[in-house]
């Protein structure tokens, strides 16, 4: 699970949960994988990302220092775009859990795939 995907996930579908966002990452294995850098794609993604959730996710997996505190004002700065690309596309949570910030309900991440399925007693 890349952090770009984490940025989209919530546990709001659980009964009684108000925000369910951002989910806490409890990682037991994190890898970095090379993904082709596509500056135009990163530029388009930046406005779609919840930056504080991204900062939070990066902190959960020990990559906080790779990310600027704010979304970049200068979208042409390729160096900054590369750093963002690294955090959102290359950092990969292979095993662990996503945890609902309100109910503490855990969603397993196995082999890089988060399992967001709910049980009957969750809904």
């Amino acid at each position, binding site marked *: 699970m890349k952090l770009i*995907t984490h940025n989209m996930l919530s546990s709001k579908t659980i009964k009684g949960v108000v925000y369910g966002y951002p989910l806490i990452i409890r990682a037991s294995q994190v890898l970095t994988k090379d993904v082709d850098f596509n500056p135009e794609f990163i530029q388009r993604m930046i406005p779609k990302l919840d930056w504080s959730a991204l900062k939070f996710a990066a902190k959960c997996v020990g990559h906080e220092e790779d990310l600027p505190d704010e979304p970049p004002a200068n979208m042409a700065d390729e160096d900054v775009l590369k750093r963002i690309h690294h955090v959102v596309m290359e950092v990969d949570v292979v095993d662990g859990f996503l945890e609902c910030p309100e109910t503490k309900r855990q969603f397993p991440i196995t082999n890089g795939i988060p399992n967001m399925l709910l049980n009957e007693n969750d809904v």
Partner: protein
Amino acid sequence: MKLRQLEAHLQEVQGFQEPKVALEQYVTPAHIAAHLLHAAHVQYGDVERKTVADLGCGCGVLALGAAMLGAAAVTGFDIDGAALAVCQENLSEFELPCIELVQTDVLQLLTDAGTRWRNHFDTVILNPPFGTKNNQGTDLKFLEVAGALTQGAVYSLHKSSTRKHVIRKASTLGLAGEVVAELRYDLPKTYAFHKKTSVDVQVDFIRFTHKNS
């Protein structure tokens, strides 16, 4: 990448180990997947450098094909962990690290009204369950989700025999459908209840766009 080349690659994709009939797990045939993706890519420019979702991705034939054609990021959604495990193996085999997988019920993706997936993707592709086994209309429920995940185009497969109904229902969802091609879907004998070794089904490959765009 040429159509024939894409089809040859997709023929190498590993299929379901124990297909589940309730989920209508059939591997999208390589020639259909290649045809759909190639048209989306060459005729409409909806794949290269785009963010693409594959709803009910199964073993990932469509997701893999989209990544091979240069999609910037692909997300595959499926309810079945076993299928996703095979899909993950396929991703490693083909070395396509821009694909993400999420285990979830596609029909639950919109339950959360504030879901951040809404309009997230440039393009959505799907080979939905046709809904022939006691769950009629599943393909149209998938289509409704697909339309909500993008402001761009949706590429989907539907039985040709249901064409009028599909186009009419899509229209009520705000989607204009255009049949790009009619294809022969050669369903191999996947399940014990199949009497013939294979059966041909006519399927429409339909491109949907939002009527207000």
